[in-house]
């Protein structure tokens, strides 16, 4: 029973957050945290669980964002209808790119993903149909509820929370399934896993495609909340790095790692901008960078492991209690 106290508190905090801190800015901040958590959790499937560090995931994010905005801009459909299109396109891209790229080892794989993302961004920048450099805009005034264009961030918050729940649910199911078993084996030592009969290439590709689809959903939701996407904001490398470091900071390969990372990094960036950004002296990023360096230096495995350890230390009985979500073999 005591094991459930902390998880229950955390869950309650997450669900009640926008009602407790109900200023528009705080609600929007919360929605943004959840949005990035969705993207980072999606990344986690291939980057954390499968151990394939993709630094080009923004290409899937952008697929979703452009599909959502494109559906509105070109066909006057609700941006929601762009979600299935975005998912299809990004899964297709993952399939096409994944086959030759997942063969590459470690850093070469990462570089190849950067190259793919940059390539797509450059192509989109030169494609008039996709708005070129001007970008695509969504509905400025919502026509109906399906346009998902709300003034208040409250509906976004709960929508994103639901999607995050689904994403984490899928991740948990995958991690506990045969696929997750294979992924752990592959992450630990691919050669050994292959020699034991694990269909490594297929499994990695499946993880890549799953991750791609979920990331594109995050991208579509982002576009709907901000009502705008352009090559820099939808396909820029900074987004890839951001979702990656959120997962890394919280703990890659752990179910709630990306959420922890998002909870720390997104408010950190916003609040340091609020306090220091207006001076124009660059201090926002000095602070932000310094804190990231400190965290990386002292806790390279991610903060969630630290939190888990803290929680374990407080428990009197030495039973190997598992904090909510950690689902990998010791």
């Amino acid at each position, binding site marked *: 029973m005591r094991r459930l106290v902390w998880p229950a508190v955390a869950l309650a905090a997450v669900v009640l957050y926008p009602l407790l801190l109900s*200023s*528009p*800015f705080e609600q*929007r*901040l919360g929605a*943004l945290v959840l949005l990035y958590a969705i993207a980072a959790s999606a990344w986690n499937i291939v980057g954390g669980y499968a151990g394939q560090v993709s630094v080009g995931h923004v290409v899937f994010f952008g697929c979703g964002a452009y599909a959502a905005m494109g559906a509105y801009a070109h066909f006057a459909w609700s941006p929601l209808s762009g979600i299935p299109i975005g998912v299809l396109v990004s899964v297709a891209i993952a399939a096409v790119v994944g086959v030759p790229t997942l063969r590459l080892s470690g850093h070469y794989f990462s570089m190849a993903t950067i190259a793919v993302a940059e390539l797509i961004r*450059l192509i989109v*920048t*030169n494609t008039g149909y996709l708005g*070129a*450099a*001007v*970008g695509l*805009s969504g509905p*400025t005034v919502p026509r109906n509820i399906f346009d998902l264009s709300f*003034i208040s961030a409250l509906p976004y918050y709960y929508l994103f929370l639901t999607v995050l729940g689904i994403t984490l649910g899928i991740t948990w199911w995958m991690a506990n399934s045969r696929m997750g078993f294979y992924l752990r084996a592959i992450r630990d030592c691919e050669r050994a896993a292959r020699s034991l009969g694990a269909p490594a290439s297929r499994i990695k590709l499946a993880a890549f495609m799953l991750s791609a689809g979920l990331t594109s959903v995050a991208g579509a939701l*982002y576009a709907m909340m*901000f*009502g*705008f996407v*352009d090559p*820099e*904001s939808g396909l820029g490398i900074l987004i890839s790095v951001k979702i990656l470091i959120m997962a890394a900071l919280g703990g890659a390969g752990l179910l709630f790692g990306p959420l922890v990372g998002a909870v*720390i990094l997104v*408010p*950190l960036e*916003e*609040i*340091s*901008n*609020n*306090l220091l*950004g*207006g*001076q*124009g002296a*660059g201090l*926002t*990023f000095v602070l932000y960078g310094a*804190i990231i360096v*400190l*965290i990386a230096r*002292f*806790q390279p495995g991610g*903060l969630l492991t*630290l*939190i888990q*350890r*803290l929680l374990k230390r407080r428990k009197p009985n030495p039973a190997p209690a598992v904090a909510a979500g950690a689902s990998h073999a010791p």
Partner: protein
Amino acid sequence: MTLKPAIGLFWATAITMAAMSAIPAGRVLAQDKTVKIGAIFPLSGNAASAGVHAKAAIETAVDIINNAHPELGNLPLAKNAGLAGLGGAKVEVVFADNQGSPATGQNQALRLITEEKVVALTGAYQSGITLTASATAERYGIPFVNGESVAANLTERGFKWFFRVTPVAADFAEIYYEFLRDMKAAGAKTDSVALVHDNTEYGTSVSSVITSTFKAKGEAAPLDIAYAPNATDVQSQVLQLKEKKPDVVVMITYTSDAILFAKTMQALDYKPPMIIADDSGYSDPSFIKAVGKISQGAFNRSSWSVGPPGSTTALIAEMYKKKSGDEMDDTAARQMQGFFVLCDAIDRAGSTDPAKIQAALKETNLKADQLMMGYKGVKFDDKGQNILAAGFIIQLQDGENYVTVWPKASAAKTPVLPYKGW
């Protein structure tokens, strides 16, 4: 790995962040005697140079408004200290960094409106960010006055709270057309035009409008040389120009690429007969400091002119230079002018009620002698666009300072042709 320092670090971070998030809420709200305006600009990232200059410009404007400056002639709000229409209330500007991201821009707009309780917003330099930030302002019914973003779609959204003071691409294209026509009449060869532009929304929109304007007026379509911004090398583009030998080269570039182009043109010994820059990069004081001496004779489009010593504009330029350390450039001047227009409207509204400010903005009718910019005036159409915006052509004749050379009525000196370079 030692656990204790890590635990300490974790708690330190958590407590710091909790403390930081508490601070804004605890701040003293604006007093009745202060009018709070929000300003969103890129104060970090690639466009930070423009944003930091914008901040200095607006701070100069705040100084002019809040203190008595009878020496500044007919400039509204200069004579008295504070806003006379609100009983001498002072203007306070809260700056926010948009970090070059439309999402951040929008979040900051939200924060300024809902937490800082600003009565109006200005900004945001990049057109995409102006788009998202003004969308938030529109939703909340807060006036948004933009002084410098040129994308056409900003005034095509049917917004009621968005006002744009600056001329736009269509105006520039007209200016170039008329200027080239006058130069041709004076004997220069202007048959072939090349447009060198980056493929950002600024570069593509301005170049496409120039192309369509020229074609509509029966001129040959300009040669289009596009490139990706923040280039590491522009040799190929300069070689293409060297090969094609156009009579006029129009440079639609940001500062970084403008500097590279100037250096590369010198290295490859390329001097077009005429260079016209579309503001932006060539107006940046950094450009002039870095490569002004090898770009002598470059024309530039501007609505700002320093004017003779002792004139209102010269005095403003001096005040700005004290604050920023740099010469006033057209972009910063346009932002400053936008801010003045906004404050003038607040003054006329006599109230901080956004609806009243909106009404006052709609009724704006400033005359040319009340402006620091060379516009014919400020009057908004029902899309929110200033229909009296205008511009000059200036020339970097000595490599250090721009002088106005066109139209004849406002010219301080005659245009010097051909382009001298170095």
